[in-house]
């Protein structure tokens, strides 16, 4: 009977977005004229403010307030014992100490943006500089083991005896791969409009998870959460960087409450590099030991990454290796080394993106060493049950993804020998890699109300960050209620709606839709026995966290895929360009074939980007990210992305939830980078292990043409 779910219908918020009528956080004019805030950042990497002179800024025209640590209101402290870092208080301007470059030292609020920006440069700060640690490579030996890694996953895992097995393996790969600092950089800058109303505060915020943002804001401001309302109808991209709130939100709220007027603040693009999240740089040692037949006997993945000393964050980069291939002896470990840099936070596909980049490159190296087809090697090592936990897979289909992808991509045309195929001035190569990503379930609530007019209104504080939430919720609700799509109205992004799981960790779609589905089923039941009163009839739906769901203990519930890339490398200059790419994915039931494909294509493009372009460079003398704008920190443009397609295997994972749906917002970005890297090797015979693979790293190994 389900007719809407899965259909490739157009986004229902599409007409608003393409006509410029969708309002993002900075754009709510119905609240009146706001004041403008501008953040002043520290120009040292570590030290202390010894003197701060705000008189010039205060005298500057239009300035209403200059806030520094000396006059900032008292705020709740950051409480590291709260498990989710995004629910913790986020105090700003709380003291003279500087922990990283760019850290806010003052906020200037003025009548106009131009006035605030100009006055900001008149704030004079004198620092006592302390020598900080900014050089990751030089601090590798100071690494320690964290208690747990991201998402509460285990820091280490061990099965069998890795050392002995690896030592005696016939064929060995033992390589170190490094990945750089990376940034989410959504197109909408991090921004906030805070509107006070007596003691109440409305916060128009650009955030992915409203419930967490709400808790964080209330505990920072130390006010009753009931007095704060968050509004987020649209978010201009998040990619992890809006899971939590950042300085601009707290500063806007503090200033608005102090001045009793609306205040808005947007970070400049340059500021975002220091004031929002950074994906930690990593150094990863991958060791693979196999028999001559290709069967893995030992598999080891050791990851060391940087962490901020004041806010520990460990990406779960070695965890993909725990579930991907069978091997009797296994060892995965995460270590952290502290640097005085901005704090690490989630960036799209935390863990998998850097982890698979290294691990799936190593698998390619092993295939090459064995003179085996990379797909055959993977199929040979396909596990029957989860290789470390011993539990069955709910729904895997990785082999099917690889076979289907190989067929569609024309994998049989892959140059068997590296550096053997030319097309004009281009060396051409093919690469592939597997994708794996955990499925998460968090508590999530939704409400649906049917009015006497027959219109159903679905409400959740869930956000649509470009993922298509408005649309898939309407599709699922229409099916559950048995009404046409145009009878469903979806209202999202307000903290006074029931708390959904938010957009993060790829769980948004499946979690929200399952709770919406339950709400609709409950309403149907009510409708069956009663008549709709004038004020409408309402029902709620709810799902529990995965820790409460036995399926998530008894089954390994993941999503999978296979990436295929063809690249060209210029024989003279080593310029590397993608020629085409295909991904085949198994993510349970697809809620909207059109928006799902878009998500996956987007994720795959992120893989191309991390393989070839993105590279946050730190000046080790100051701790500043040097390439902090979009002209220097390169992300792909249209010309970098030719044919990319994503195929979704039709499926249903009933162990995940009754809709059979799983997440896929990050899946496209899991392993895509390795497929590109492996294609570069196939094209050139040059293996670059220091990502991204830029032309300067390939050039020395390419023979001159004379």
């Amino acid at each position: 009977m389900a007719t809407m779910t899965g259909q490739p219908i157009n986004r229902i918020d599409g007409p608003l977005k393409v006509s410029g009528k969708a309002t993002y956080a900075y754009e709510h004019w119905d609240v009146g004229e706001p004041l403008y805030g501008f953040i002043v950042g520290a120009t040292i990497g570590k030290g202390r403010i010894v003197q701060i002179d705000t008189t010039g800024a205060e005298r500057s025209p239009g300035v209403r307030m200059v806030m520094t640590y000396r006059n900032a209101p008292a705020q709740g402290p950051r409480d590291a014992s709260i498990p989710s870092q995004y629910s913790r208080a986020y105090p700003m301007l709380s003291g003279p100490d500087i922990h990283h470059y760019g850290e806010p030292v003052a906020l200037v609020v003025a009548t106009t943006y131009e006035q605030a920006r100009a006055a900001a440069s008149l704030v004079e700060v004198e620092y006592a500089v302390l020598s900080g640690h900014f050089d990751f490579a030089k601090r590798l030996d100071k690494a320690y083991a964290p208690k747990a890694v991201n998402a509460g996953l285990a820091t280490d895992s061990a099965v069998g005896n890795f050392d002995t097995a690896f030592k005696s393996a016939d064929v060995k790969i033992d390589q170190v791969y490094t990945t750089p600092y990376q940034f989410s950089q959504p197109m909408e800058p991090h921004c906030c409009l805070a509107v006070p109303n007596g003691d109440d505060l409305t916060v128009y915020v650009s955030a992915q998870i409203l419930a967490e943002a709400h808790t964080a804001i209330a505990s920072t401001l130390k006010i009753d959460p009931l007095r704060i309302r968050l509004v987020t109808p649209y978010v201009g991209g998040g990619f992890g960087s809006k899971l939590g709130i950042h300085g601009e939100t707290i500063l806007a709220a503090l200033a608005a409450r102090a001045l009793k007027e609306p205040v808005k603040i947007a970070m400049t693009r340059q500021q975002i590099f220091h004031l929002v999240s950074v994906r930690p740089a990593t150094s990863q040692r991958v060791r693979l030991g196999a028999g001559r037949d290709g069967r893995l006997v030992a598999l080891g993945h050791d990851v060391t990454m940087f962490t901020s000393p004041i806010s520990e964050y460990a990406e779960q980069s070695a965890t993909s290796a725990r579930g991907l291939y069978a091997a009797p002896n296994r060892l995965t470990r995460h270590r952290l080394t502290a640097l005085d840099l901005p704090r690490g936070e989630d960036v799209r596909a935390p863990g998998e993106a850097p982890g698979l980049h290294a691990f799936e490159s190593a698998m390619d190296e092993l295939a090459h060493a064995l003179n085996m087809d990379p797909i055959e090697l993977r199929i040979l090592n396909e596990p029957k049950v989860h290789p470390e936990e011993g539990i069955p897979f709910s729904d895997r289909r990785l082999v099917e993804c690889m076979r289907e992808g190989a067929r569609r991509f024309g994998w049989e045309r892959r140059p068997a020998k590296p550096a053997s195929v030319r097309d004009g001035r281009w060396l051409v190569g093919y690469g592939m890699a597997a994708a794996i990503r955990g499925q998460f379930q968090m508590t999530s609530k939704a409400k649906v109300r049917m009015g006497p007019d027959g219109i159903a209104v679905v409400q959740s504080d869930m956000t649509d960050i470009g993922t298509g939430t408005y649309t898939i919720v309407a599709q699922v609700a229409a099916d559950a209620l048995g009404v046409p799509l145009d009878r469903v109205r979806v209202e999202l992004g307000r903290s006074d709606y029931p708390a959904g799981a938010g957009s993060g960790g790829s769980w948004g779609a499946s979690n929200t839709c399952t709770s919406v589905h339950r709400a609709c089923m409950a309403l149907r039941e009510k409708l069956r026995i009663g008549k709709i009163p004038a004020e409408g009839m309402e029902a709620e739906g709810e799902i529990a966290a995965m820790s409460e769901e036995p399926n998530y203990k008894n089954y390994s519930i993941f999503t999978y895929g296979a990436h295929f890339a063809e690249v060209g490398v210029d024989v003279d200059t080593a310029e590397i360009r993608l020629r085409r790419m295909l991904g085949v994915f198994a993510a349970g039931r697809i809620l909207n074939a059109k928006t799902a494909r878009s998500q996956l294509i987007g994720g795959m493009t992120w893989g191309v980007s991390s393989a070839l372009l993105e590279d946050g460079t730190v000046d080790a003398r100051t701790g500043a990210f040097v390439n902090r704008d979009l002209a220097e920190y390169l992300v792909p443009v249209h010309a970098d992305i030719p044919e990319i397609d994503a195929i979704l295997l039709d499926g249903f994972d009933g162990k995940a939830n009754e809709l059979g749906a799983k997440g896929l917002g990050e899946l496209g970005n899991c392993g895509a980078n390795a497929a590109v890297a492996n294609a570069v090797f196939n094209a050139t015979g040059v293996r670059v292990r220091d990502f991204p693979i830029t032309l300067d790293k390939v050039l020395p190994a390419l023979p001159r043409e004379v």
Partner: protein
Amino acid sequence: MRPFTYERAIDPEAAVAAVSKAGAKFISGGTNLLDLMKLEIERPIHLVDISRLPLKDIKEEPDGGMRIGAQATNSDVAADIRVRTRYPVLSQALLAGASGQLRNKASVGGNLLQRTRCPYFYDTAASCNKRDPSSGCAAIGGINRGHAILGASDACIATHPSDMAVAMVVLDAEIELLDADRATRRIAIGDFHRLPGTTPHIETALKTGEMITGVVLPAPPEGRQFYRKVRDRASYAFALVSVAVVVATERGTITSARVAFGGVAHKPWRAKEAEAALTGGTATMATYWAAAEAAMAGATGRGHNDFKIELAKRTLCRTLAHAAQEN
């Protein structure tokens, strides 16, 4: 951005008169000046808007050359069919730069005077002799992947970012200037941009208050022209290295050659040594490599940018081969 007063000039004479005020600056497309003003790297107190001056014409000259008004946009020049057929290297260089939107605003005059993209120049907290004379150069000993390999000094290792100017250099363009006394002069583009020396803040031969009114291209040189830009991203990125060449061959012998590089020096870099090595030689890879070695004989890297030396050589050889082969 610091406050400024604004006026729109009605004719070139009024413009140069208006800019004689201390702290005044011309604004044309604004795509470089406003970028820098927002960061307070440039702090003019008065802006003279020259974007509407009647200096947009692209005209043929009696000697077979062309004159391009300083206010012609980068797009207009690149799309002009006479430029495309007679000076394709110029059209190619322009099209390789920036983006469609930026080229629609960027003027010829502004493009010549755009400032370096050195990230430390852009960071007002970093020491930079170009932005703040005698403060030091953070790029030396810092991150310098994009920096100069030729003609740099211990005071500054920045590059000039223009693509257009590199093509103009191989075309032996002349820049036409008007000063506050309404005097005009012409200067060869090769003499217009300067090497950093000890005064990297002085970037061109432009005198205070002088305005660029146009660029004059002599009749097209003999031979085939080609512009090749190498960059990390496929588009909308500055050059790591770029090469403009004009080569003429006769029965396998190179009769004349002109070579210039972008992305390697504080100015668009004319490689006379390479030209000498090419002229009279056979149109073969061996000759091209000899020219490349000659061009890069004086090159030095600063660490991260060492690769540019080899990259420049290879790019030159390939570009020459490409241009010569279709002669």
